[in-house]
């Protein structure tokens, strides 16, 4: 994908919702912001990670906060631009390109919104390949890029620069500031060189988001199964992911609560064919691990995606409700999200959902 346009926007948004694996915030608001600028004639160019020079400055951009607040307070484009400019000032050079910190959910659209204002291209890639709830859960940081300095700011031009001892601490301090700003802040973080970006990013994820979204629409348009559309797409996609239908069922129990600042919970699904067969999916902002009969069938960082049984529209954890009929789809993630360092940061052990990581294709 070379450009994000009005023609490709809806497919891209659907794909970012899919890659959000239940979290990351509803891309609807970000999509409207992009549509507004694209309709005015703005352009969003996408370049490959390999298209930049090793010493170029690349700046990830995101909105931090609670999805429930973002739908009311809205991300602010002017504040994003100021965050970028401040980062350029601190780094002593102009940015060559933008990149998403998180392709899943609303943050998949943020760099494009900024691109539509500044004309800067967006790198086809991101730092998560999905959605995660905390700033340090990012391949940039896993492979040595410093999360600090972080520019945390809002529309009132409150602007705080966080320089912390490590990426965990960066998250901790930025979160406190974000809450004071109304639980929604625009942030620029992980400033990096072109070389660092090439070495640490999860590549081609913007194209992936677009193509997943398109595979769902194509199947609907031709009257074939959107589920098969998704599975066939991943099997033949450029980076050959493992993809499998994990479960077909109905949501028969739903439990959500807030503990330690997380939206935690479980969803129970009951098979449509066999009422004795159940799946339990654990939620911690995103879908993290799925069990059938106490045996895990997929776990973080592999993607667990709940989609509507008929339309394959991705279902966010907030929108999940009793009685919904869903397909649960599991998708493997690229190798650089499965190394020991990566799993130590965003695998099942740091999320405290399982004692070791088992790749989805090995569970079968």
């Amino acid at each position, binding site marked *: 994908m070379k450009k994000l346009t009005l023609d490709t926007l809806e497919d891209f948004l659907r794909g970012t919702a899919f890659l959000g694996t239940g979290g990351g915030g509803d891309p609807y608001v970000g999509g409207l912001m992009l549509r507004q600028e694209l309709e005015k004639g703005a352009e969003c160019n996408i370049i490959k990670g390999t298209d930049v020079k090793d010493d170029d400055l690349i700046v990830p951009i995101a909105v931090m906060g609670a999805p*429930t*607040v973002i739908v009311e307070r*809205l991300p602010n484009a002017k504040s994003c631009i100021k965050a970028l400019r401040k980062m350029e000032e601190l780094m002593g050079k102009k940015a060559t390109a933008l990149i998403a910190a998180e392709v899943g959910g609303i943050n998949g659209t943020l760099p494009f919104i900024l691109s539509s204002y500044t004309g800067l291209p967006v790198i086809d890639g991101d730092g998560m390949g999905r959605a995660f709830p905390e700033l340090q859960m990012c391949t940039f940081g896993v492979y040595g890029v410093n999360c600090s300095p972080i520019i945390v700011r809002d529309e009132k031009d409150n602007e705080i620069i966080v320089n912390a001892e490590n990426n965990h601490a960066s998250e901790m301090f930025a979160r406190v500031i974000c809450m004071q700003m109304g639980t929604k802040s625009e942030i620029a973080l992980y400033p990096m060189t072109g070389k660092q970006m090439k070495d640490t990013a999860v590549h081609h994820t913007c194209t992936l988001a677009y193509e997943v979204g398109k595979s769902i629409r194509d199947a609907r348009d031709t009257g074939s199964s959107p589920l098969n559309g998704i599975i066939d797409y991943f099997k033949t996609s450029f980076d050959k992911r493992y993809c499998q239908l994990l479960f077909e069922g109905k949501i*028969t129990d739903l439990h959500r609560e*807030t503990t330690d600042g*997380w*939206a935690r919970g479980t969803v129970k699904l009951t098979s449509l064919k066999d009422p004795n067969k159940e799946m339990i999916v654990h939620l911690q902002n995103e879908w993290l691990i799925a069990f059938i009969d106490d045996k895990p069938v997929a776990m973080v960082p592999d993607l667990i995606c709940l989609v509507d049984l008929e339309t394959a529209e991705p279902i966010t954890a907030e929108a999940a409700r*009793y009685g919904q009929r869903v397909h649960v789809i599991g998708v493997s993630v690229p190798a650089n999200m499965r190394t020991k360092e990566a799993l130590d940061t965003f695998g099942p052990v740091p999320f405290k959902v399982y004692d070791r990581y088992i790749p989805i294709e090995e569970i079968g």
Partner: protein
Amino acid sequence: MQIGVDVGGTNTDGVVMSNGKVLVSDKTVTTENVGDGVFNIIKSVLDKSKVSANKITSVMIGTTHFTNALVERKKLQKIAAIRLCLPAADSLVQMIGWPKDLVDTLQPKKYFAKGGYEVDGREISPLDEDEINKIIDSIGKQNIDSIAVNSVYSPLNSTMEKRTAELIAQKLPHVKISLSHAIGKVGLIERENATIINAALSKLASEIITSFEEALLKLNIAAPLYISQNDGTLMLPERVKSYPVLTFACGPTNSMRGAAFLSGIDESIIVDIGGTTSDVGYIKNGFPRQSAVAADVGGVRTNFRMPDVVSIGLGGGSIIRENGNRIGPDSVGYLLTKKALVFGGDTLTATDIAVKRYNLDIGDPSLVKNIESSLLENSKNQITNLLEIAIDKMKTSSKAVPAIFVGGGTIINKEKIKGISELIIPENFSVANAVGAALGQVSGEVDRVFHYDKLGRDKTIEIASEEAKQNAKDAGASEKSIEIMEINENPLAYLPGSSVRLQIKAVGDLENI
């Protein structure tokens, strides 16, 4: 005694009810001037029941008229929209993503001003009354009679919206004002969309409600008039004149409420079979389960409280093809009594199959006596299959539950359906929606973010429940009858102090019933 009326797109139905029983019911066609149709149906049921007008204690009307006006882009008015938000929440202008023809119809004038709140209750910035007055002056020069006002986090704090309304009323006393906190929930854009739709309907609302009031006047009915809202409870006419958008989706809600009442069952699947479509929903405690997904009305995304309904293209007028292997989704609709075989027409419909299969006395049964058994068998299987799938979607567990069938098209199925324990077709099934309108409960709600760490969960819910009960009482419910119908807790991720969005609804019977 109460009168319940349902004004649909095609039919206007009415019932007279006394002591929880339906005395009489009738159907007429909906007229161009809906007030005339309401007059006709009330006159007809009064005549039929021989009840004199002064014995009527209340009249309840449910209408899909405002929804239809939006969908058909008819009788909408020009609006201005003010958002209290600066310096925040201005990244999206009003009405982004709306269908172009609707935007052209409303010719919106858009304004942004300082104001709004944070999630924790702090002000984004104080309301600047000079700024608001300048906006009002600008609107006043443009011949606009309806203004939508939306402040960030107005569901948490409505003070700034209310103050803005006061300022507008001082300078432009004739202008209709729609305030977002009275209409929608958290979700700035969806709530604003609903508020703007409301503003566009406000002139029509006055006309329609006045025509209802005039119909009652002509009939010498002095009893109070109530209008159904989308959650199955009632509003006073004055409130509907200000908030017509709250009547959206009252149609399916009323038929479900009516079905629950007529059958005496308060937790069940409801199947409302009309002429063209069937709506399948679920009631618990006598009220419809609400949908969790964003509701799209006339091409505009909103966050209305809508009943959770699956609609399928199956009704009494559904056209049957391929030897019974294909049914609908198209229908002969209101032309059923001309086009169906039993009425001498040339189109095979679901009604014709029912007449043959169940030996019904509708039209001229001799006209369908030659329908072959394979066609009959295939059609029956298709109909039950369509219903089974829709019903299964609405169930919350694999456990068999009863299903209540209502609506004029109910005759097309008497077969046992998989997944239900019992198929119930109550008396007066064809006017369940008018019965639903007559049920006359009013509600009070609380929907805000609470912090459990201050008083603890139980105490917080208790306080919020009392507030909901008070709201129900303020809306006209008799104190004795008020009960808490629903408590929803939604924890807010990332927020401190165990923050929870609590939605509590209290309902009660009207004082005068």
